[in-house]
């Protein structure tokens, strides 16, 4: 597994030292709130009224078992024994004491973990397909590219004070598990007609009140040239992006105002000045080294006589949570952290330690985190999946939700978030209670429900099969329903169903939508396929009957 070397670790320590000095100056009244805010956000630290939240990066969603243990220790020592896995391959701690922050960060840096640029108006943690390197038909593992691009934009002198945050995702697989076209910038690994490897570049995606799908600004940029192309994109954004309007800071507004074509033209014009600069070429020697560091720690094995155990509960869990691996003899195992009534993505320090131990026993000590807030074991031998399941059962971690409607993505909502217009988690709980029959869940199959408590759209409700957005109407909580959004096969923003529905009736409405789907489904059609075929009307008629 790839690990930082001594220079990189030293850099992390230098960054903590610097931040500690800034914090001291702030506490001594020498650095005002506004400036300190800007600086602390770039170190992942949010300040709420009574507590501080720290967001730690999990680059490309890959964690080693010692790293996960280190996160568990932080949860115990500096928080209340919890961490929260987010939708963008970060983990958040919600109860951090300000004076302890430097020690906490130093402890994490011992394991190569950091919170650099996990917030603020700069390049955020770069996300990758959590199944990178594991699935059939992948063009290439995206993680070495993520790492090189992450490094390049780490404290970049020119682009650390952008108009708004800048989120990048990179996908090398057939299906898009990264939702790259709802990112500020998405890179898709592709091969051109000559078989050369490069990137298609998509710019200006994002959700929120003005949901937009990123436009393609370049269909093929050679691997070597990607850094200079990204710099040109950021330069145009840095110079021309809106800074005058709090709600128009993100690059999507610039792309929309200029038009995607004009935006690409400006980027290209700038890029012509730098694309031949040898100092801006991606370092191909380093790339090769990283490819080795990220290569899979397993070899195909022949499990000739192996027979799967017969157990009803096991087979349900396996059906939902286990996927086939491109390497013979192995499986990919998904572990859901979602529990009834708890915030999706929450993990206790104990769970983290158990997962770390189990990953060493069953998955070469490596774990991945996903945008559905689940944990993946990437290298489980097929003949050990049953044993793993038994261990997970023992610790209450064998929830067979993965991929079913019960694996709901919900933001903290009004229970924890100041900006919320409505609750999210209690709605998730009520939906799970309504659909608590495993037979029914299996019959419904793969169906995503995402719930955001306000227009900031932290739970990505626009791109779920069924999206719920909390809002206020005459002082009461209502939910707007959107249908048939998706990112996996193509990127589609869900369509609004009609008038918002009261909190009281929202679970009935969800059930009605599911029933209309089941009624019209032919063969194995997915929700979005049925929606495309029959349109919105049958859903509307039944929900607003």
């Amino acid at each position: 597994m790839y690990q930082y070397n001594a220079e990189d670790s030293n850099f992390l320590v230098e960054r903590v030292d610097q931040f500690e000095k800034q914090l001291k100056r702030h506490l001594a009244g020498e650095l005002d709130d506004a400036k300190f805010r800007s600086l602390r956000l770039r170190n992942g630290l949010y300040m709420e009224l009574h507590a501080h939240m720290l967001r730690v990066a999990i680059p490309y969603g890959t964690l080693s078992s010692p790293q996960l243990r280190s996160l568990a220790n932080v949860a115990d020592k500096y928080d209340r024994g919890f961490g929260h896995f987010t939708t963008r391959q970060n983990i958040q701690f919600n109860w951090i004491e300000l004076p302890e922050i430097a020690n906490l960060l130093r402890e994490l840096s011992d394991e190569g973990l950091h919170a650099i640029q996990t917030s603020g108006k700069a390049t955020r943690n770069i996300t990758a397909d959590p199944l990178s390197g594991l699935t059939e038909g992948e063009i290439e593992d995206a993680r070495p590219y993520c790492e090189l691009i992450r490094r390049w934009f780490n404290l970049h002198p020119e682009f650390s004070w952008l108009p708004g945050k800048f989120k990048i995702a990179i996908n090398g697989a057939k299906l898009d598990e990264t939702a790259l076209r709802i990112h500020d910038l998405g890179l898709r690994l592709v091969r051109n007609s000559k078989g050369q490897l490069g990137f298609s570049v998509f710019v200006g995606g994002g959700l929120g009140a003005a949901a937009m799908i990123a436009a393609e600004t370049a269909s093929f940029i050679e691997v070597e040239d990607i850094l200079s192309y990204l710099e040109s994109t950021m330069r145009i954004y840095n110079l021309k992006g809106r800074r005058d309007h709090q709600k128009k800071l993100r690059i999507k507004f610039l792309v929309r105002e200029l038009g995607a074509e004009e935006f690409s033209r400006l980027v290209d014009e700038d890029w012509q000045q730098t694309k031949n600069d040898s100092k801006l070429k991606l370092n191909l020697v380093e790339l090769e080294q990283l490819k080795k560091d990220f290569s899979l720690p397993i070899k195909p094995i022949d499990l000739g006589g192996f027979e799967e155990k017969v157990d009803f509960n096991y087979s349900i869990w396996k059906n939902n949570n286990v996927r086939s691996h491109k390497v013979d003899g192995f499986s990919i195992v998904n572990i859901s952290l979602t529990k009834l009534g708890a915030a999706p993505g929450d993990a206790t320090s104990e769970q983290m330690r158990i997962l770390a131990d189990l990953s060493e026993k069953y998955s070469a000590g490596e774990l991945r985190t996903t945008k559905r807030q689940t944990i993946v074991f990437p290298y489980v031998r097929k003949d050990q999946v049953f044993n793993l399941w038994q261990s997970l059962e023992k610790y209450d971690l064998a929830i067979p939700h993965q991929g079913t409607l019960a694996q709901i993505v919900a933001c903290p909502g009004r229970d924890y978030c100041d900006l919320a217009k409505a609750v999210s988690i209690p709605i998730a709980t009520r939906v799970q209670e309504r659909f608590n029959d495993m037979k029914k869940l299996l019959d419904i199959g793969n169906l995503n429900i995402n719930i955001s408590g306000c227009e900031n759209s932290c739970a990505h409700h626009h791109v779920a099969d069924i999206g719920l957005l909390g809002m206020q109407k005459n002082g009461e909580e209502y939910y707007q329903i959107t249908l048939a959004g998706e990112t996996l096969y193509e990127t589609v923003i869900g369509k609004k169903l009609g008038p918002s529905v009261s909190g009281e009736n929202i679970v009935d409405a969800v059930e009605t939508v599911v029933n209309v789907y089941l009624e019209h489904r032919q063969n194995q059609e997915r929700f979005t396929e049925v929606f495309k075929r029959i349109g919105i009307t049958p859903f509307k008629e039944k929900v607003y009957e």
Partner: protein
Amino acid sequence: MSEILQIESILNKEYESVDLVSFQEWLENIDKLSNLSVGVIIGPSDDVSLIKGHFDFIELIALDFNNFDDGRGYSQAYLLSKRWQFSGEIIGINAHLDQLQFMIRSGVTSYILLDSYIGLNEEDYANGFSICYQEAVNNSGLQQKY
């Protein structure tokens, strides 16, 4: 901001006083000012490309970094020094201690801090790191890992 308007002249490398004019004033009086070797103050929203053809007549450029969160100055510094090869001084005015490392690496050749930072250890912020991960206009003193 008002602080900027108070700067009417600045010392150059040779410690000679150079008169400063605003970008707007300079554009409106190019002919007259070209003979006087003035310095031009450029703010974040000024279109820096407009003075590209006039470098021979500009003694120095003062980029205004007063607004902490407005990062356009860094791209302006890059364009002036690297792409258009302005050979005079590029002075960062109204500079913030915590941003010196970014300014210098983007091509700012000297700086004048805001008064509120006087007495703090500048070295800590100008050179807080031993390594850098990307090509920049000025990476001196940094181990380059890229």
